[in-house]
């Protein structure tokens, strides 16, 4: 599966995502500049983490206007796989490809640490190789990961099984103590109704080799690859 990794001014996890899919998973991959509208026949697009446009104004608020995001939207509308990680998730929210918004972390500080997340929906291409209730160890690193949504929309999100990952304790229990940023309903990642666009705050590319402390992120990339093979 050919992956396209977007680069915005201020992206800083694009090399990490590229390394994970290209070197660890052995897939073809290409960088795509924010000014481009040509997705180069990629079968999956990664909107990587970082601080696009310095996160000035509001996270993701400027990147959404990039020419490439128009192409990503059309790609998603045709059913293409789009994975937004961290700042990428924030950009997908601002673009409207995913519902909701991000607030500053409840503790008001940047948080970088390993967390446990529970896989809530395995019927989408991003998690097909996982079992429901699996607990993954995967790092987070963000200042604005406190996901929020009005009560009505949250009910609809839950009903449609669009909550894909939740922060949990090591045993899989969803607890307030396991929530690192105050996110509503412990949400760590959500997908669109169709299941082809996923946004998540944890970094699967940082959990893709045993040396880095976890390989659980590999299962996400493998699921994506399997879904299109």
């Amino acid at each position, binding site marked *: 599966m050919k992956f396209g990794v977007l680069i915005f001014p201020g992206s800083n996890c694009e090399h*990490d995502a590229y390394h*994970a899919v290209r070197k660890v998973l052995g897939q073809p991959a290409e960088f795509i500049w924010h000014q481009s509208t040509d997705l180069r026949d990629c079968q999956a697009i990664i909107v990587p983490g970082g601080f696009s446009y310095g996160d000035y104004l509001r996270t993701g608020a400027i990147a959404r206007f990039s020419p490439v995001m128009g192409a990503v939207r059309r790609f998603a509308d045709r059913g293409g796989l789009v994975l937004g990680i961290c700042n990428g998730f924030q950009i997908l929210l601002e673009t409207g490809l995913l519902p909701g918004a991000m607030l500053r972390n409840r503790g008001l500080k940047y948080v*970088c640490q390993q967390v446990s997340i529970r896989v809530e929906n395995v019927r989408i291409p991003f998690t097909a190789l996982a079992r429901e209730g699996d607990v993954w160890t995967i790092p987070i690193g963000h200042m604005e990961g406190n996901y929020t949504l009005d009560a009505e929309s949250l009910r609809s999100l839950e009903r449609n099984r669009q909550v894909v990952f939740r922060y949990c304790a090591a045993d899989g229990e969803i607890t307030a103590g396991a929530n690192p940023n105050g996110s509503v309903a412990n949400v760590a990642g959500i997908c669109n109704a169709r299941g082809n666009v996923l946004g998540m705050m944890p970094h699967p590319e940082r959990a893709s080799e045993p040396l*880095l402390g976890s390989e659980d992120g590999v299962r996400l990339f493998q699921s994506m690859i399997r879904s299109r093979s």
Partner: protein
Amino acid sequence: MQANLSMTAEVLEQHNLTQAEYDRILSILGRSPNLTELGIFSVMWSEHCSYKSSKLHLKRLPTRGPQVLQGPGENAGIIDIGDGYAVAFKIESHNHPSFVEPYQGAATGVGGILRDIFTMGARPIAAMNSLRFGPLDQPRNRQIMEGVVAGIAGYGNCFGVPTVGGEVVFGECYSQNPLVNAFALGLFRKDRIFYGKAAGIGNPVIYVGAKTGRDGIHGATMASAEFDEASESKRPNVQVGDPFLEKLLLEACLESMKTGAVVGIQDMGAAGLTCSTCEMGGRADTGIEIDLAKVPQREEGMTPYEIMLSESQERMLLVAERGREEEIVRIFRKWEIDAVAIGEVTGDGMLRILDRKAKVAEIPNRALTDEAPLYNRPVAAPTPTSPAPAPPGALSMDWGKLLECFLASPNLSSREWVYRQYDHMVRTNTVQFPGADAAVVRVKNTRKALAMSLDGNGRYCRQDPRVGAQLAVAESCRNLVCAGARPLAATNCLNMGNPEKPEIMWQMTQVVEGMAEACLALGTPITGGNVSLYNETLGEGIDPTPVIGMVGLIEPLSRLRSSWFVQEGHRVVLLGPLVGGARGYSSAVRHSLARLQPLRERGADVYSRWVSRLPCPPLDLDLEVRVQRACREGIESGLILSAHDCSDGGLAVALAEMGFSRDGAGTLGAEILLPRSDEVGEVLFAEYPSRILVTVAEGNLAALEKIAVLQGVPVTPLGQVVPDVLSVRSADSVVLERSVASLEETWRNCLGGFFADPL
């Protein structure tokens, strides 16, 4: 040129220039300088840029070795790590700005050191910082610390460099004078190194990066003066950082270097455009002529004086091959960054500044750089203190309670509150998370990893600056060895008081002497660094605080070791002496332990009070070298499974730390049997150097002992790894017994408890 102004004593004082220095300027120029020229001299001859008080002494440091590709004098030192790769690294202080404005002061410190690295063509892959604050029970110190940590996080996280380690130390003397030393390390191919040289007469000089504003004017001069009550009003002297712009600058610089059109490049740090122009010219023995009208400016009506002295951040000066300017400008334009040719390299060795073609300053480059004043300032040793009294009799106290008190000290507790705010994982190379003895990042596409550590100890250096500096170097190397690395080279940051006081100069000479001795013994040359003087507020100087940043190589990566217990049943062994030799230290330790009774309640920092009364422990450099060699051999032969440096807080604290979990997942303890029952307190808590705690599988103990004996290193099997409990017995009794989980909770929650933080 504009009319020469009459130099009043007041003008000179504003520029921190002495009358003698001014006379020297007159003789160099053969005329009076104008205000712009005076400003240029004042920043280049400031302590910060010229090292005028320290340079003569720094020459004693070893700087060469087969691994050293670039020693002091460039933007950063460079060492060879094999297979065509090299790393550039350096540490720099941002103490004064961080006191005036903690967030921006620390942030721009990080920005400056990152530019020093990527200006050489290396991509920064790791950052660390060494921080010192006053005690946290004072709100002002908490405010400074919170701002500094947030500033480092704000800059490093956005830029995309992992902040992988460092140190945080608290002491009374840092109350009005925090120390913020930022370290960065970058990786490149060794045939792709760029230098800050303005070579090639006629080559264009290109300004790239942020526009110039009025911020930070005279930052370098401020960093060369003491603080008084009026320091609050110096806030406009502190620069404001833009990490986003720096990230773009990084990418644009590295991309433009690939074209082959870049001849030389240097960042505009302290003293901005002034420093970069004259240093680049000075190194290449050329002159530089620039026209200020072409400099991108953020504000209108800036004078030549202001433009030349501005310390606006995120700017670089680049010399390109003539005729290839357009290639470079195009790359910067792609990254939406200004790139403007502002002048050219000349053959006359002069720094010539024009403003709309009118000459506003003209000074020989060398007068500003190599010919800056050098001082051999008077040195005076302090009167020696009286020797310690004879040791008291056997002590009996609740050692478990004392260990708890120590672990609850801000100086020994977990640094998680700090490093959780730093992105320490970006770039996916971090293979040892913060909290271990050394930070470790792997080098992708190789079998290598780089280990690094920052270490200083002001309280020892106050007692004995020479041995204290040796201890800092020794500990830094030991930390690397514990991670499985071979120490290669170091960078240093000397944080001291006012060099015009003879006793401070004495400290400096002693620190340099000790550092040189230890670096020679351990085979780790100093490849560069920074000196920060005038760390005094209201006449009170800090403890002399040299900070060492050591870099080592782990190869193959399978030699990487952590400092935690691995598995139940492993044997716990001490490499190095159980107690050291010196009677004076030993006696002082036992006296001060006796004075700790009765132990205060939680909240009082028992450890910091205790240790501040102790003399500097003795160091046998020869033994240190052998202990480190034994540990390396034990790791390389696969015997040693984990290793932990035994330093602050002594053996007991090190044993407890080895049991703490990395992520709160599970705990391991140890059953320890002390081979001697006298002096239990000294064995457990004294801070003797040259000691490493290691674990080995049961069957490998004899093989490890053999290695130690061959190296002439004392080796003591202490016990074994067990679940959940740390217990220490001596021949006849239980010395202490504690649940590791409860010790860990005490240790983990200390720092966060000082800050109102709901998470």
